[in-house]
């Protein structure tokens, strides 16, 4: 029972890592850059959602839609202002600095224009945990058993849905195939008539929009603050790498692995070291399979 409880919270946490990792993978596969500010986009989504839904009182659906739009626009700006100039100049490290800089600006912007504090985001599904397998009291309430937040179930469902939809889209539609083509070889894809710049733009907008949605999803079970994305962003790198930077479902596996291992390690070994097994596995994995669980090793013809 206790373990099951831990698994549930581990899975919910893990799906958030997975979503952000998925975001990393999307832009990596098309542009071969890692967006170090993605965690801050998660924060952007959480903050914008909070301001619209909690502070201003708009309906949740409207707030969510606005968050998606803001995220997409943010991604476009990031690409134009940060990434494209460095790729144009064939600067090997430029995009690292650019994404880090954008991350700093986003975080500080939230602190200045919004708040430095931490706030509660009410879940649209209610904040009380559902009790499963508890025993029923005389007055009809349930106590004991497993406590599951409805928001956690929402996180799991929505995350899987997003990954599923995007992956299917990639395989089934023509545009999706264009995305895959650009991931493989963008110059050739371009020669085949695919507008690779548009594809990369699309991938950035999609990735940041997803991160923003992740922010709104996770806000009710954590806290909304200007710094809510930093740690999540870093952990999600691990999830990405474990699954393989070019693999969509790999992100899910990586995220789940990380979330569950944290939860179980915290309980049964030590909370101080709860991140360590995840890290150790990551390093071992990369010693034997450098491109991640589901990544494909690139074979270069010499």
């Amino acid at each position, binding site marked *: 029972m206790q373990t099951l409880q831990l698994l549930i919270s581990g899975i919910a946490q893990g799906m958030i890592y997975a979503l952000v990792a998925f975001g990393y993978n999307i832009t*990596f596969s098309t542009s071969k850059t*890692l967006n170090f500010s993605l965690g801050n986009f998660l924060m952007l989504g959480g903050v914008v959602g909070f301001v619209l839904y909690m502070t201003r009182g708009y309906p949740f659906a409207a707030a969510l839609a606005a968050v998606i739009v803001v995220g997409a626009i943010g991604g476009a700006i990031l690409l134009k*202002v*940060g990434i494209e*100039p*460095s790729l144009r*100049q064939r*600067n*090997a*490290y*430029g995009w*690292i*600095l*650019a994404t*880090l*800089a*954008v*991350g*700093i*600006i986003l*975080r*500080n*912007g939230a*602190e*200045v224009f919004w708040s430095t504090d931490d706030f509660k985001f009410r879940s649209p599904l209610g904040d009380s945990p559902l009790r499963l397998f508890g025993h029923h009291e005389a007055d009809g309430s349930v106590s004991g058993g497993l406590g599951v937040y409805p928001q956690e179930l929402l996180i799991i469902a929505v995350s899987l849905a997003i990954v599923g939809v995007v992956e299917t889209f990639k395989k089934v539609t023509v545009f999706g195939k264009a995305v895959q083509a650009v991931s493989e070889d963008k110059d050739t894809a371009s020669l085949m008539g695919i507008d690779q710049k548009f594809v990369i733009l699309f991938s950035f907008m999609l990735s940041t929009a997803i991160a923003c949605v992740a922010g709104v999803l996770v806000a009710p079970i954590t806290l909304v603050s200007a710094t809510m994305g930093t740690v999540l962003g*870093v952990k999600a*790198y*691990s999830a*990405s*790498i474990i699954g393989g*930077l070019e693999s969509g479902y790999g992100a899910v596996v990586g995220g789940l692995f990380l979330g569950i291992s944290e939860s179980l390690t915290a309980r049964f070994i*030590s909370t*101080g*070291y709860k*991140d*360590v097994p995840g*890290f*150790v596995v*990551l*390093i071992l994995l*990369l*010693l*034997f399979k*450098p*491109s*991640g669980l589901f990544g494909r090793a690139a074979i270069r*013809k*010499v």
Partner: protein
Amino acid sequence: MSAAPASRSVLSRLWPVLLLLPLVLPRAIDNGYYVGLLNRILVYAILVASLDLVVGYIGDVSIGHAGLFAIGAYTVAVLTASPNLNTESSIAHFYQLPFGVALVPAVLLTAFAGFLLGFPALRSSGPYLAVITIVYGLIIYTFINEQEAITNGTKGITLESLKLGTMSLRGIRYFYVVYPVLVAVMFLVHNVTHSFWGRAFEAIKYSAVAAECCGISRAYFKVAAFVLSAALAGLAGGFFAQLDSYVAPNTFAYNFSVEFLIALIFGGVRSVAGNIIGVALIVTLPDLFSRFNDYRLMVYGTLLLLVLYFMPEGVVGIIRKVWRRFRPLDHSAERAQLERQSEGINVLAGLNEGAGGPEALQLKGVEMRFGGLVAVRDLTMDIRRGAVRGLIGPNGSGKSTTVNVLTGLYTPTAGKLLSFGEDLGPLRTFQRARRGIARTFQNLQLFADLSVLENVMVGLHPSFKSSLLEVALRLPRARAEERAARVRAYALLKFVGLEQAAFERARNLAYGQARLLEIARALALSPRLLLLDEPAAGLTAGEIGAINSLIQRMKAAGLSILLIEHHMDMVMAISDEVTVLDFGKKIAEGRPAVVQSDPVVVEAYLGKHPTSAAVPA
């Protein structure tokens, strides 16, 4: 180094200023704040220089150097801490060693940590490796935070102020302690990176495969870079511990690594002056920007983006650009000297000497299988000493694969390889290169941002015998070897006719020139066996003629050559014997004329003779 080919770096011009600085400084600054800033800049500069070795030279982004820094700082702290300043601590044992003594294990322990990091670095690259470094840093941080009995955990360790006898070494006196260390580190780093070591690092970055084929062991140099970098980071950490005489784990978190990466890129990679400038900026900017109060970081972030737009090579890049406007790069003096000194050097001398059997190359039943695909099947082929063998066949017939097997990039799934009587099997790529097997590449593998001259000098790597210590200290033997290598490289360029472009970046060469450069680089190895993989691909008639005459001259000097080509007239004219492959198998072999008229060969290239050919009008 590579951005300013063959010229002295900014720093090397500033040596006199740097040496005089400590004499001037105490008169100019008597303010604890500025001295504090200065000391901070010095210590951080050592860390950023260490980061540059990995990021700028080897080309691996590391966002975990805070962890290595932490090991250095904490080793010193743990070994020098005293109980009276750390009452109520959880520390189990106080060693109370002197600071100078504690620095040694600090550096060694961190170097070992760098060694451990080298292994994942060999297997991964790019963002994968970047994340490994992040994780590595986090593991070290977690350990320091949790192991209270050793590190006192989050409460940190307070150190006694540094003293020499009874004299306190804080403030301006600490400057006198750290400054010579920084100068020494910069001197060593500068020397190492402007030598064959530095070129080896960069060669690995641009093309690890080509580097190996020039006799550079990727594993050795990559791990060495991480060890050197870690050692320096540990040294910096040790001095950091005494900056404020206090260490706590939360200093060494992920954000710290990020800040130093920013400082490095901001200042300019591969430049010691850039390292210092970058550090100076990130140390002083928060204070310069304090007028912006809480907006400070947004302004900082915007500044970084602007730097990227306008100064992709960092602040040092701008300084160089401005400097060049006033003093354009003038290589004429150096060129004249190289011309003079390379006169009379015959690059082809002595290539056919050396012991070993009469067979330059023997393949016996070699098979190369990739999973279900058999690229090369049961290949038996010889090259006599001093002969030229052509290797032809339709695309995909296994020619390049054969060359890759010969150089050791692939391990054959069956068969034996011998060269001059020696079994190549147990030899790795770089070892085969050192034995005198050189190659060019079908898909150019140049070291893009090194100069043309430097590219050839990479080929001369095996000829350097100086030890790392001699290189780091710029001892006479190292200097002499470097000078001799430059001269020889220039001579090689003259041989292929590229000397005019000697100081150009390799990436700026025209295609034909690039092909010539590969040949010059291969010749630099003083090879006994030269493998040319489509050296004339994509060249104009005139350029093909040039290649042709080069090959003639090399053959005349007694070099054994394997020539893969599609230009039939060229192959047939120069080869003593020709081998034909199709679908990985040898289908014909013999003198050129014989092979040319072999119907099997014709069919392989042109297809079966149509029986009822209705030729369209």
